[in-house]
């Protein structure tokens, strides 16, 4: 039998994406998520129901602060937190999920923690993350 570790690596490699944008904890990012909608599953207004099940695909953007990157390899995930209408919302994405079309870094944050759970208890201005200062090029 060939090496067990190499078989596992190969299979997970085939599932991994190799073009993932580099981002860190504290960054504000835009995650473009592919969403499949079925119209038949939707509740029609005032008893209106469409007979056919239409499958629609669209891309939704979820913008927020990365508060955690967890795990490694194929099972790595990251958590994005945003405050929406005064309510905190957190979404966990698998890093290699095929449903993620792309990830954009909107703003780089300067943080001193690997996990930003402290943001959950803060409200308003206190829940902000400082922007990372661009390093001056050394000559």
């Amino acid at each position, binding site marked *: *039998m060939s090496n*067990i570790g190499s*078989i*596992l690596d190969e*299979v*997970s490699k085939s*599932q991994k994406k190799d073009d993932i944008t580099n981002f860190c904890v504290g960054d504000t990012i835009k995650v473009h998520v*592919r969403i*499949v909608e079925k119209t038949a599953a939707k509740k029609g207004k005032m008893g209106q129901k469409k007979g056919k099940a239409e499958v629609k695909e669209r891309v939704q953007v979820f913008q927020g602060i990365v508060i955690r990157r967890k795990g490694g390899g*194929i*099972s790595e995930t990251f958590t994005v937190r945003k405050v929406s209408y005064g309510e905190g919302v957190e979404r966990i994405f*698998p890093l*290699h*999920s*095929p*449903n993620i079309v792309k990830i954009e870094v909107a703003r780089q944050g300067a943080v001193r923690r690997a996990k930003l759970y402290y943001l959950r208890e803060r409200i308003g201005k206190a829940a902000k993350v400082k922007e990372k200062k661009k390093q001056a090029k050394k000559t």
Partner: protein
Amino acid sequence: MFSGLIGRKVGMTQIFGEKGESIPVTLIEAGPCVVLQKKTSAKEGYEAVQLGYEDIKEKKLTKSLKTKFSKIKVKPKRYIREFRVSNPDDYEVGQELKVDIFEEGSFVDVCGTSKGKGFAGVIKRWGFKGGPASHGSRFHRAPGSIGASASPSRVFKGQKLPGQMGHKRVTIQSLKIVKLDKEKNLLAINGAIPGASRQIVIVEKAEKKS
């Protein structure tokens, strides 16, 4: 058609499904297996096919096994298992069976030896509650009373008591084949299977689900 193979558990990982959901899978390197012997009701009293898996050096064999393999002119195999079939004459000695006897999306039963936990007490082995840790209870992880004195004045059969836990033949039924790699003889099966990685397992077509 024939429905079983000997294989080896590779380990667990995850793959993404069609909708982008992540599916936990166990990889099994199943086969290729070689038919070593046919057993018929006329001769042995039952119908079965004997399969061999994984090559082994000839010098490691005992004399009786050496003659067995040299008679049928098959490379010596390390693992030999039997599978019941309805008609053994469909197969030939020396025939190779590969992972393509299964289909993607169909269900299988996987049989292996579970991880040994050693001599375990009733809390670990049977999920007993146990007593309070403190307040002078003096009853912590013991099984408690196993039978009353006057009636029934004996211990019932099957009473749950400490003993060997694990390292036992375990079958998990109706596991879905998520992916199948014919070139590498790999099966990706949804969910967990008994035993540690590198362990020998038997993969058979599911009895209760197709």
